[in-house]
C-alpha cells in the first residue's frame, strides 16, 4: 500500500533508518566487520572456517531482511564459480593418496582437500563482497563517502555508471523492438539477433554520447556545480556506539585469528 504524501515526507523528516538494526550499521563499520570475518575464514588452513564464515554471511543477510535474494545470488555463485574452481583444483593438484585413478589425472585426497579449501575460501570472499552490496546500497555508501569529503562528482560518476548499465538493457530492448516493428527479424538464435542489432549500434552509441552532454547540462541546472555547502535530504545516521563496538570486535577477532594462525591453533 502506498503511503500518503504526508507520510512520505514525515519519513524523510525522521533520522534515516532502514527499519533494521543490521541495515542501519554504518557502511564503514560494515566493511570492517565483513573484512574481519573474511580474514578469520582465510587465516585458518582448512576449509571448515571459510565455510562457517560463508554460512554466517547468509545468517546476517537474513537478519538484515535480505536473506532470500542474497541466498539466490550466492547459490548461483557457488554453482557457477565455486564448483568449477573445486573441480579444477581437485583434478589438477597432485597428491599422494589416490582415490579415483583417471589415467594421468587422478583424484587424490590431497587434491580434494586443496580443492575444497581453495574454492570455499574464494566463495567466502565473494560471499562477503556480495553481502556488503546486498546490505549497503550504493546510494548510502556514496552518502557516507561524501560526508567524509569525497567530491559529489565522484559519487555521481559511480552511481550514474551503475544506472547506465541498467539503462543499456532497456535501450537494447527498445532498439530491438524498433527493428522488429520495421519487419527486421530479431527473434531466434544469437546470429539473428546480432544481425538485427548490429546496424543500430553506432547510432545508439552516438545517442548515448549526446545524451551525456544533455545530462551534464541538466545537472548543472540543478545547481550541481554550485560552490558552497550542500545539504542532504537523507539524514544518514551518524556513527553510533553499535558501530564502534562492531569495529572493536572486528579488530579483536582479526588479532585473535592472526595470533591463532601464527600459534597453530587453527
Amino acid at each position, binding site marked *: 500500500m502506498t503511503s500518503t504524501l504526508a507520510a512520505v515526507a514525515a519519513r524523510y523528516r525522521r533520522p534515516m533508518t532502514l527499519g533494521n538494526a543490521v541495515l542501519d550499521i554504518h557502511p564503514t563499520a560494515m566493511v570492517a566487520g565483513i573484512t574481519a570475518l573474511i580474514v578469520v575464514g582465510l587465516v585458518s588452513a582448512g576449509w571448515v572456517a571459510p565455510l562457517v564464515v560463508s554460512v554466517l554471511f547468509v545468517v546476517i543477510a537474513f537478519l538484515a531482511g535480505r536473506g532470500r535474494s542474497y541466498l539466490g545470488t550466492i547459490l548461483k555463485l557457488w554453482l557457477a564459480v565455486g564448483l568449477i574452481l573445486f573441480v579444477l583444483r581437485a583434478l589438477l593438484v597432485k597428491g599422494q593418496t589416490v582415490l579415483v585413478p583417471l589415467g594421468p589425472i587422478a583424484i587424490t585426497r590431497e587434491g580434494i582437500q586443496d580443492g575444497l579449501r581453495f574454492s570455499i575460501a574464494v566463495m567466502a570472499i565473494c560471499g562477503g563482497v556480495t553481502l556488503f552490496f546486498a546490505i549497503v546500497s550504493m546510494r548510502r555508501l556514496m552518502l557516507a563517502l561524501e560526508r567524509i569529503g569525497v567530491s559529489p562528482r565522484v559519487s555521481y560518476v559511480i552511481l550514474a555508471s551503475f544506472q547506465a548499465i541498467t539503462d543499456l538493457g532497456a535501450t537494447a530492448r*527498445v*532498439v530491438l*523492438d*524498433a*527493428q*522488429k*516493428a*520495421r*519487419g*527486421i*527479424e*530479431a*527473434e*531466434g538464435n544469437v546470429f539473428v539477433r546480432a544481425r538485427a542489432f548490429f*546496424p*543500430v549500434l*553506432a*547510432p545508439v552509441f552516438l*545517442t548515448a554520447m549526446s545524451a551525456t552532454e544533455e545530462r551534464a547540462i541538466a545537472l548543472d541546472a540543478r545547481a550541481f556545480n554550485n560552490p558552497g555547502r550542500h545539504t542532504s535530504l537523507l539524514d544518514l545516521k551518524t556513527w553510533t556506539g553499535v558501530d564502534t563496538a562492531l569495529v572493536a570486535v572486528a579488530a579483536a577477532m582479526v588479532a585473535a585469528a592472526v595470533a591463532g594462525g601464527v600459534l597453530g591453533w587453527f
Partner: protein
Amino acid sequence: MPIELHGVGFTYPDGSRAIDDVSLRVADGERVAIVGQNGAGKTTTVKLMNRLLIPTKGDVLIDGASTAKRTTAEVARDVGYVFQNPDDQLFAADVRSEIEYLPKYLHWSDQKREERCSRAIELTGIQDHLDTNPKDLPSAVRKFVAIAAVLVSECRYVILDEPTAGLDSRGLALLHGMLDRLRDEGVAVITITHDMRFVVDAFERVVAMADGGVIADGDRRDVFLDDDILRRSRIRRPDAAQLARDLGLGRRALTVDDVVALVP
C-alpha cells in the same frame, strides 16, 4: 483483410494490468483514431496489433488467421508501426539507405524495390533529402523518413503514434495528403493521438479508451456528442466544436468548417 482483436488483455510481468477484454476490428482502408489519457492502454493495444506485445489473454487475428505462431517481424510486415520518436527507428547513414534497408533485407528484386521505394518516397515528400543523413534533417522531416521506411513494406495497416507532434502547416498538409492516398490504396490507418483537431479532420471512426478498456467505438460525431464518454475517457472536444456547443449553435459540429457554417 481485417485485423481483429478478440477480447485481448495484457498484463505486465510485474502483475500490473495494462488492458483487459479489448475487442476491435479494423477493415481495409479504414481510418481509426484511438484517443484517451496517458496510461489508458492505447499504446498497449496497438502494440498488440503488430505483436510487439503478445496478449496474455485473447487473440489477435489478421485476415481470420491467428498471429499466435508468427514472429513480431513477420506480423510487422503486415502491420506497420511508426514510433512517436523517429529517432528510435532510424539508423542508416542516409535517407535512401534507410528506405532501402527492408527491401534489401528481404531480397526483393530490383524492380520491386524501386517501385515500393519510389511510392514510399513520393507519399512522404522526402525526394529532396535522399542523400542526407537523417540526423542532419529537421525533426519534422525525420518523422516522414520514418513513415516512409515503414510504408515501404507491403503493410495493409499503418499505425501512427502521435504523427502531428512538432509538424508545421506544410507537414500537416503533407500528412493529410498521404492519408488520402493510403485510403485510395486500401491501406488502413490507425493513429494514437492527443490532437483532437487532427482527429476530427481526418478520422471517421474514434475509439476512446480509459483504464485499460474501450469506453466507446464508433462514428466520431457520436463519440464527441456524448458528454459521458468524454468525461469517462477524459478527452475534450476540439475548441471550435466546444464553442459551438457552448453557444448553442449545434451539438454535432466538429470541424472548424462545421462551425463556420453555423455562425450567422
